């Protein structure tokens, strides 16, 4: 449990230190260093959980179980690799004169602050703190979105801030209702009334009416952060206008954590409500987001917007899976969270390089990547294949399970899934192919790119797809049992 403190302490102090650090390349190295440290600690924590099982400590304020432990590791890992990438990327931006040293300093500081909030979201046991951290994540990233100060960037940041702010406010209302519902139950001390563990133990006693309303607010609140249609409108703008590493961590981490929050709340509400209402709500939102995003993929002009819509689509699929709530589906959802965040952040890394290569984010200006710089081209192509759910990459396994699970419990929904996946696939590839394939466009020369994160992520996803390591499998299984109530496989 020292590990947890360290995990929270490192990025916090990191953000303070980096805020004071002037020299860009030193702060770049520090940034990597802090992330490396927190990755180390998170692995330490993982081992601890693996040996001891769930941890609950420091006045029950922190709770680590099989549901969030691997998310902690994942967050730390993606944070590190993205930090590696952002080193090269930010260097390039700086030399290109797009940002001043002051903003660079701010960038690194905010990066660590964001990591801190992410870890807090995952580790805390207090629904209120979870909300605070989630809001904090917005505050940490919102000024990153407007880092370039272009009108579009400012606009995107404004929308991000307002929409997420309002959304998250709903979540707070939901939290208050949770607290209220808990207060109604005898034997819950007020200072423990917001602890997830407490709520979960007494979930059956919580008043269903309150809980259902609370869930609505929580779903809308965290759903806004997750980019569920029709609350998603900030997401493509924020992704496309901010610096690419930020898009990578937004897609890779923030969305995951928002989903994590939603699922945690669902676990509470499921217990108290007899009905399957939360499930239906999530299924509805998920399917809607999935289909709308899939269609919107088709007329994208901006490469980062393209992939942010694909993020929405995948979040929709996961929400749908958790909404179904049967063991297979939940397992698939958990698995998908992992593989999606790995793959998508890898894709954003390559996208960043690609757009630097072409000097623009406009899809119709990016051509013949494979001939221009094979590493980037292949990275983008294979990454997209992976995200489109082709084996042997991991995303396939989860989509497979989702399809099977849907066919099992809601067969009449399968045509929608079928169409959706088909449309999404076509939407991605009709834009992707001209970018990676085709003859070498004149006047392009290779740039100095750091493809290590991409290779690492894709290899990991490949590994997960070919054979899931036993401990991860166990955690997924336990988490599934926790969420769905029975073992999947």
């Amino acid at each position, binding site marked *: 449990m020292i590990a947890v403190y360290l995990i929270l302490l490192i990025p916090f102090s990191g953000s303070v230190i980096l805020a004071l650090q002037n020299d860009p390349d030193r702060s770049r190295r520090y940034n990597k260093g802090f992330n490396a440290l927190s990755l180390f600690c998170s692995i330490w924590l993982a081992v601890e959980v693996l040996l001891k099982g769930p941890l609950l400590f420091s006045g029950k304020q922190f709770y680590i179980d099989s549901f969030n432990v691997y998310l902690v590791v994942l967050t730390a890992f993606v944070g590190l690799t993205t930090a590696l990438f952002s080193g090269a990327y930010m260097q390039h931006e700086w030399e290109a004169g797009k940002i001043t040293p002051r903003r660079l300093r701010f960038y690194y500081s905010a990066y660590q602050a964001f990591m801190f909030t992410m870890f807090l979201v995952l580790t805390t046991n207090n629904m209120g703190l979870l909300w605070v951290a989630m809001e904090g994540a917005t505050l940490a990233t919102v000024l990153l979105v407007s880092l370039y100060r272009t009108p579009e960037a400012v606009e995107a940041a404004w929308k991000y801030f307002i929409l997420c702010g309002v959304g998250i406010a709903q979540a707070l209302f939901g939290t208050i209702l949770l607290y209220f519902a808990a207060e109604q139950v005898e034997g819950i001390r007020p200072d423990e009334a917001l602890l997830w563990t407490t709520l979960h133990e007494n979930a059956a006693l919580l008043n269903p009416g309150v809980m259902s309303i609370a869930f*609505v*607010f929580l779903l*809308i609140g965290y759903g806004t952060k997750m980019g569920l249609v029709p609350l998603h409108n900030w997401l493509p703008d924020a992704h496309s206008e901010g610096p690419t590493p930020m898009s990578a961590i937004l897609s890779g981490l923030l969305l995951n954590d928002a989903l994590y929050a939603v699922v945690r709340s669902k676990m509470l509400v499921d217990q108290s409500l007899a009905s399957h209402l939360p499930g239906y709500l999530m299924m509805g939102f998920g399917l809607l987001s999935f289909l709308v995003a899939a*269609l919107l993929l088709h007329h994208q002009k901006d490469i980062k917007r393209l992939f942010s819509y694909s993020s929405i689509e995948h979040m929709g699929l996961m929400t749908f899976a958790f909404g179904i709530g049967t063991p297979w589906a939940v397992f698939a959802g958990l698995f998908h969270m992992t593989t999606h965040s790995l793959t998508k952040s890898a894709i954003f890394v390559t996208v960043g390089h690609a757009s630097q290569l072409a000097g623009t984010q406009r899809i119709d200006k990016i051509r013949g990547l494979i001939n221009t710089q094979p590493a980037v081209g292949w990275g983008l192509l294979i990454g997209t294949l992976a995200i*489109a759910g082709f084996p042997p990459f991991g995303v396939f396994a989860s989509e497979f399970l989702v399809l*099977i699970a849907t066919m099992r419990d809601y067969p009449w929904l399968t045509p929608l899934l079928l169409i959706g996946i088909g449309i999404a696939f076509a939407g991605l590839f009709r834009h992707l192919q001209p970018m990676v394939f085709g003859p070498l466009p004149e006047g392009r020369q290779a740039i100095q790119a750091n493809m290590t994160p991409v290779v690492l992520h894709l290899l990991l996803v490949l590994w997960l797809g070919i054979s*899931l390591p036993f401990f991860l499998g166990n955690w997924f299984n336990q988490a599934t049992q926790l969420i769905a109530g029975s073992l999947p496989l």
Partner: protein
Amino acid sequence: MPMTLFFALLSVLMALLSAVSSWAYSRRALVEYLLNRIFAFDSSRLVKVALFLEPDYYARAMRIVPFCLLGVSGALAVLTGLLQLLGADSAAMILPFGLPGLSWHVRLDALSGFFFLVLGMPLIAVSLFGPGYVREFEHKKSLAVLGFFTGLFVAGMEMVLLADDTFFFMIAWELMSVASYFLVAFQHEQPESRRASFLYLLMAEIGALCIILGFGVLVTFAEGFSFGHIRGVALTPLWASVAFALGLAGFGMKAGLMPLHAWLPEAHPAAPSHISALMSGVMLKIAVYGFIRYSFDLLPQVYWQWGVIVMALGAVSAVLGILYALQQQQLKRLLAYSSVENIGIIFLSIGLALVFFSTGQSQSGALALLAALLHSFNHAQFKTLLFLGAGAILHQTHETSLEKMGGLIRRMPKTAALFLAGTLSIASLPPLNGFVSEWLTFQAALQANQLQSGVLRSFVPTAAAMLALTGALSAACFVKVYGIAFLGLPRSPHIAHARELTDRGMLAGLALPAALCIVVGIFPVPLIDGLRRVIENLTGAVLANITAAGWLWLTPAGAETASYSPGLVLAAFLAAGALGYVLLYRIRAVESRRAEPWDCGYGGLNAGMQYTSGAFSMPIRRIFDPVYDLRETLNQETGDSAGWRVTAIRYQFQADDKFVRFLYTPIGRSVTQSAYRLGRIQTGSIRTYLAYSFATLLFLLWVVS
């Protein structure tokens, strides 16, 4: 682990190795480093290593090595297949991959064994043909990419054959699709190959989803993912039909069954020829395997309605496929359409088998199924041969259009001779292998008398009539191909200067399938004997008397009903031929002399006077006009103002298939349009967005309370 399974896994491994080794093609530095580390201790080896690493030598070696490994893989596959056909019993094991509780099951039984055989033979041919053929890419494109994905592609197909649970099956299946996608996109500088690869991957994806959902139904009822669980599953007729429809859509999409064939004539020509050979010769058969496995092994029972549907689809694909093939001017495109036709024939037989099995006529059903399997084997052989032949022409002349060819038989005699074998067998002429399978199909159709329902009894022969039409048309089609490409006078200068293949390997690659076409055509009995075992193992139906009359005789339904002895036919044919030869050239022969062709005394014969490919197929174009989406242009240049004296006439035509225009294009358009409409809701004004979330909130609150 049993021997056969060991061989099978080994051949998968070999394919993967070949992928890796060709990756090394572009990683010379790395290899050098490794080898130097390995052989650091003694300098004598180091010298050899240095020799090996000398760039030109390294390039040549690395061009050949992957294909050698592929060849080994093919040989092992053939070995596996033969052992299985000779009655080795099926073997299964579990590989330590996959998800917890969802690990990869592999199983090798007679059916998959047979398809290993189907896969192995063309693979060997390709691995012989390949090294010579890829030389032309050497400086233009990366052989590493080509070889890498070829290896993966082959491995994927072999894994599909081995897979024994839904999860692993889908992984292998998709691996096959993706790898071949990269191969189709290999020459991605040409826009058409980009378009082709996109369409291909899209349809492959959708087909795969259909299969997954089909499996989903089975898994749901079986409560387990492995085929072992599924085999015993009990389904209501409704769900069974849903599962079957999904499977038919999925596997049919991959097999190129109409109307799901649109990707096929685009993708096959776009790929390099040896890949087209693999895709057309083998991959389509993997789809057939999947369909047979799915409907005869996994689904608990079959219904005659399914059979009728499959038969109808097969018949349509067969007839339309060959009709479209007839109008193609690009050789490889023509071959692709003819693959659609052959798949149609195969599915027709499968449908026949479904009808028979569902009505309890297991004997006849087994016969029809046997015909389907045999035709799969045959098609694998001659389509490989033809695609490789097209590759040879392409390699020597860089020409794909039939309109430009002609007279190649005098410039590439060996290729021409081998290609002729392919032509005759795909035109299903006796005594070659194509005829045997067609003959068996007819024999199976003749059993329609045993069917109780009159509807079916009249439906089956109608399908047979379609089959007959197909056979005749395909004969016309391939006579055209051979006559236009190899006979007559060269229609363009670069064809006139064509040279015969010099690379022995390429010739061998052509010769192997040609030899198989002839041998199987003349002595089909051993193979059919093996197939009998396959079908017995699959469906439990025992075909007692098909090979009862000995190794020389085919008696599908008893000697009384029908009998065919290709061997004796060949003997008699040779005798008669000898007689003719003696009459012609021996008895007081008058020596012949060469002279200018008579041509009814017109004289001045030149290439322009010949019938072109388009002209040859013109009557059929007119007769079957409705099935084509025909665009013709005829412009005349007249010498004088009055326009009486026509100096030049240019006629161009394009006969596309109607499905693309009336099915695929509308779908694509509708998707784009709806995306456009949907875009309107995202106005960009933040107040609208706030209104969205506000409305959502109110709505949900109203819902819950």
